[in-house]
């Protein structure tokens, strides 16, 4: 239990600070001073002590439960990932439920911005889920779906990023799509205010932001673990910072795409990545 709590706490703190780092780097690239690196963390904590209010148009108690559900699934991901090094397929299932929660957090408030975010979440699932199917390619390469066995495979045969680079690139695109301000972040585009978070205030927003930080940490953790191998905590931190810096550079220099372009681009990446990886596996 202590191990779970410790890992969840680390995931939350590291994820929050990495989000802050991203915003800082993006600001510096755009010639702005930017907020402090710990701004995202402070922002999240602030919402936990703010007054909570609920729209009278919301679908109760669905509207409240869905945010708690988001927290629960990412805590589950920490248990399956860093704590027990369990099944990748289970992390795939958790990601799928995350998409569902993202979709319904938007539609349950009754706000038109949330509704648009909900429809975009459904669209984006058609592009993000194939990207996540990269895990199947890892199974074809390593013969296992268990993270601890994948780590052992890499200890013997070298990092997977060298043998299935296209799969790693696809997973990176998935990570990019979950970053705020990314070209693929259509569910939270500024044209729809804050997307599915628009009508979530106080405690509920705190939960959403906390879940996002844990989700960010987990996606980076999965990338580093399944493509580079088991690392020491320091190297995990270095790897996560490097990935976040790369994502920040991309986000700072690219505009957000329209929903259709975003989906088409991600689907194109998925097709090239899946076919290319299968060809690489055959040779």
């Amino acid at each position, binding site marked *: 239990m202590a191990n779970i709590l410790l890992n969840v706490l680390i995931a939350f703190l590291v994820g929050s600070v990495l989000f802050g780092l991203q915003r800082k780097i993006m600001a510096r690239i755009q010639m702005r001073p930017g907020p402090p690196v710990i701004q995202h963390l402070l922002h999240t904590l602030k919402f936990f002590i703010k007054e909570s209010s609920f729209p009278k148009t919301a*679908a109760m108690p669905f509207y409240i439960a869905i945010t708690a*559900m988001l927290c629960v699934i990412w805590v589950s991901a920490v248990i399956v990932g860093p704590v027990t090094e369990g099944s990748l*397929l289970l992390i795939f299932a958790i990601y799928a439920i995350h998409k569902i929660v993202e979709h319904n957090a938007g539609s349950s408030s009754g706000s038109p911005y949330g509704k648009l975010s909900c429809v975009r979440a459904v669209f984006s699932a058609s592009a993000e889920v*194939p990207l996540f199917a990269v895990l*199947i390619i890892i199974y074809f390469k390593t013969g296992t779906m268990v993270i601890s066995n994948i780590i052992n495979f890499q200890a013997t045969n070298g990092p997977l990023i060298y043998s299935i680079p296209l799969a790693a690139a696809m997973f990176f695109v998935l990570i990019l799509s979950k970053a705020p301000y990314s070209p693929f972040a259509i569910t939270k585009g500024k044209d729809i205010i804050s997307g599915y978070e628009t009508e979530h205030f106080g405690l509920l927003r705190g939960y959403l932001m906390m879940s996002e930080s844990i989700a960010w940490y987990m996606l980076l953790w999965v990338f580093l673990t399944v493509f580079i191998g088991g690392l020491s905590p320091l190297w995990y931190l270095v790897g996560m910072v490097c990935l976040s810096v790369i994502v920040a550079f991309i986000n700072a220099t690219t505009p957000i795409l329209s929903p259709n372009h975003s989906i088409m681009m991600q689907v194109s990446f998925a097709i090239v990545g899946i076919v290319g990886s299968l060809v690489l596996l055959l040779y």
Partner: protein
Amino acid sequence: MDIILLGQQLLGYIPLGDIVLYLAPLNLFMFAGSLAFTTLIAISRTETQVEAGIGTLKDNEVKVNKDEFKIRRFLAIVCGLATAGAMITGDLFNFTLFVCLIGIVNIGIVSAVKQIDVLDAAFQYGLVAMIAVLPLFGGAAMILASTGSLSMLEIVNIPTNAMMIFGSLLLFLGVAGETGVAPFYATKAEMFRTPGSPFLLIIHLSSLLVIIRVIEILLIINKPF
């Protein structure tokens, strides 16, 4: 119990005649997830969509009326239970039946709505779902013909042959059409514009969870090693 499926230790199985339910961590997680969401749907109200009126300063409120609410909630619960069943069944034929039921109730959930665009989307999705029935059951039948069993616990020990791969491809096509995933998502996404967030959740939930389950099933049938 010493059965391992895709690296998962089987925790147990419940033989109910030919309906064998198997309990592995992934399946239990998805089963519990489906039931949790179904419970939530059963106890929730629907939201009221507020939209700006055209040519006026007033807002338009779009609500789900009581009759519509009752039938859509019933169908959403049936869909949730069918999804939960599809998550833990260890029998390929039962899986296809559950998926078929999910397709039918998904159309039902949105066809109770009185919005032309949404009904058009439901109609198009219905056509795809009906067409997908043939490869869905055809794929399962081919796997039965080539292995002599529909039980995943038996199939996992049978070496893969060409007919099993062909049957798997048909099965995947059937599930893709029945659940309306890519490339059929564009049609299905239009259905989400209607109010009734808790009911729409189950449409999305069933699609994504069934896709994960079918990936697990396909990897059990087609053993690359």
